[in-house]
């Protein structure tokens, strides 16, 4: 099992060794509730607040602008649902894109049932939101714009600075889902016109169970999970301090190593893309090429075959990949992201995402390039669509 190849880092990552070691004492030894008035509480609170500071520093925020949540999904839900009431006089119109994560899209669908109106901005064939489209979509009653930083399926990096400026000029709250980009792309909220930004630790080699929402000072947000006085009364529930402390360490390391890591990984990415194109006919790349693509993301559509078959074959060889977002793997409809960039259902069904990470090597890329063409050939030979 040790020579399995994990290529699904966009779904989740392993906790890296340094983070794991750093977290360990907090389960059994320093386990106190950070809200408690005793030494057990004080010692965890110290580390909890240090993690808040680290995370704030990593993204150019102030510590008090960082609110801890249990996940990126919770942060997304909260960002959106939390600001509505403060804007109720202004209106009920929200703008987002067609390629958001389900954490955003399903939240908005729920809101539509409650009388909110949502505009879903289209994207171009590479997966980019056009700032002009945002301008056109803004109405007098627009209260919130939610656009992701980098797409989890096709890796397209959105022009959030430009989009944010437009929101700012129009006095509209701007939420950014940075779950895929945090720790991978530089984020400096001192200069980015963003009001709310979601993070999730398990995407950057931190533990599951910790996320964060940046809430810019002055942005009014209502609590979604009410309870004790945690997070200045805005997010109740005993802190999962272990995970939060791990998140701080993980983001710190990710930001430290960002440049070097991206250089290495984007090279692997391009080798993988080029290699697949050389070896497999009738294949297309989903998402852009180059700097506007997440360094770790490869997403291709392979004509005439269906994605799950590829996954299963790869899995039998110890290679873990995904076909669209992991979260949608139980679903039967093809990815909404792939449809949004103009793919037909048929082609969308044949998509494969390979998301690279810290542990991957050139040997892993070679292995994929060696086995995938054979798998494709095999599946195509069974396909009634293929006239090979």
């Amino acid at each position, binding site marked *: 099992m040790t020579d399995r190849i994990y290529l699904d880092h966009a779904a989740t990552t392993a906790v890296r060794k340094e983070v794991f070691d750093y977290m360990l004492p907090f389960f059994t030894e320093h386990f106190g509730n950070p809200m408690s008035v005793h030494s057990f509480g004080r010692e965890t609170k110290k580390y909890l607040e240090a993690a808040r500071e680290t995370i704030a520093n990593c993204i150019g925020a102030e510590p008090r602008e960082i609110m801890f949540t249990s996940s990126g999904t919770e942060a997304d839900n909260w960002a959106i649902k939390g600001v509505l009431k403060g804007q109720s006089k202004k209106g009920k119109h929200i703008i987002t894109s067609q390629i958001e994560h389900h954490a955003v899209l399903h939240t908005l669908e729920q809101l539509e049932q409650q009388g909110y109106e949502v505009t879903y901005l289209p994207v171009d064939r590479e997966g980019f939101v056009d700032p002009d489209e945002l301008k056109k979509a803004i109405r007098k009653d627009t209260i919130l714009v939610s656009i992701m930083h980098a797409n989890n399926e096709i890796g397209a990096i959105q022009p959030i600075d430009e989009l944010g400026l437009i929101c700012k000029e129009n006095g509209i709250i701007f939420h950014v889902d940075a779950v895929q980009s945090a720790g991978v792309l530089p984020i400096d909220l001192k200069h980015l016109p963003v009001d709310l930004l979601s993070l999730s630790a398990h995407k950057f080699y931190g533990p599951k169970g910790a996320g964060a929402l940046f809430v810019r000072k002055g942005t009014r947000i209502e609590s979604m999970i009410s309870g004790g006085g945690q997070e200045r009364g805005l997010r109740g529930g005993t802190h999962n301090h272990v995970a939060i402390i791990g998140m701080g360490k993980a983001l710190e390391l990710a930001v430290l190593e960002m440049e070097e890591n991206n250089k290495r990984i984007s090279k692997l990415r391009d080798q993988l893309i080029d290699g697949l194109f050389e070896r497999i006919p009738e294949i297309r790349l989903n998402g852009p090429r180059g700097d506007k693509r997440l360094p770790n993301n490869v997403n291709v559509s392979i004509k*005439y*075959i*269906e*994605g*799950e*078959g590829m996954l*299963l*074959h790869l899995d*039998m060889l110890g290679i873990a990949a995904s076909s669209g977002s992991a979260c949608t793997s*139980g679903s*039967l409809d*093809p990815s909404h992201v792939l449809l949004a960039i103009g793919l*037909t*259902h*048929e082609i969308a*069904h044949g998509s494969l995402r390979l998301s690279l990470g810290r542990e991957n090597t050139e040997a892993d890329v070679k292995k994929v390039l060696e086995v995938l063409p054979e798998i494709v050939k095999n599946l195509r*030979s*069974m*396909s*009634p*669509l293929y006239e090979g």
Partner: protein
Amino acid sequence: MDYSDKVMDHFMHPRNVGEIKDADGIGEMGNAKCGDIMKLYITIEDGIITDAKFKTFGCGAAIATSSMVTELVIGKTLDEATKISNKAVADALGGLPPVKMHCSLLAADALRRAIYDYKNKNGLPVDDCDECETCCHDHHDIVEE
């Protein structure tokens, strides 16, 4: 997906892949939009299915059920074959995950359409099999959970 060993076996080593040039009956179900297309070819001699082959575009379960249905059907009379239910196909595979049960429906329906095709071409009385032409979405809907 939690596929049984049997499903994985039929997926990795599908039986009877291919086309039959002069098939006596051909049944096609599903469409690319839905992510599943099964095309089933059968050869019939003296009312007995003597050969069956398939081509399938679809997930692991779609390929495995296609493979299994060809195995089940070879050697059966038309009457026996018509009675092969989707459950029988799934059972023969050691079960299917709930979200994949529609694949077994697809396979059973493809078989029924191939038989219908044969009967139709040969002027035999046909069952009311038109409702087989269900879109994948109907099949997906039957999935519980």
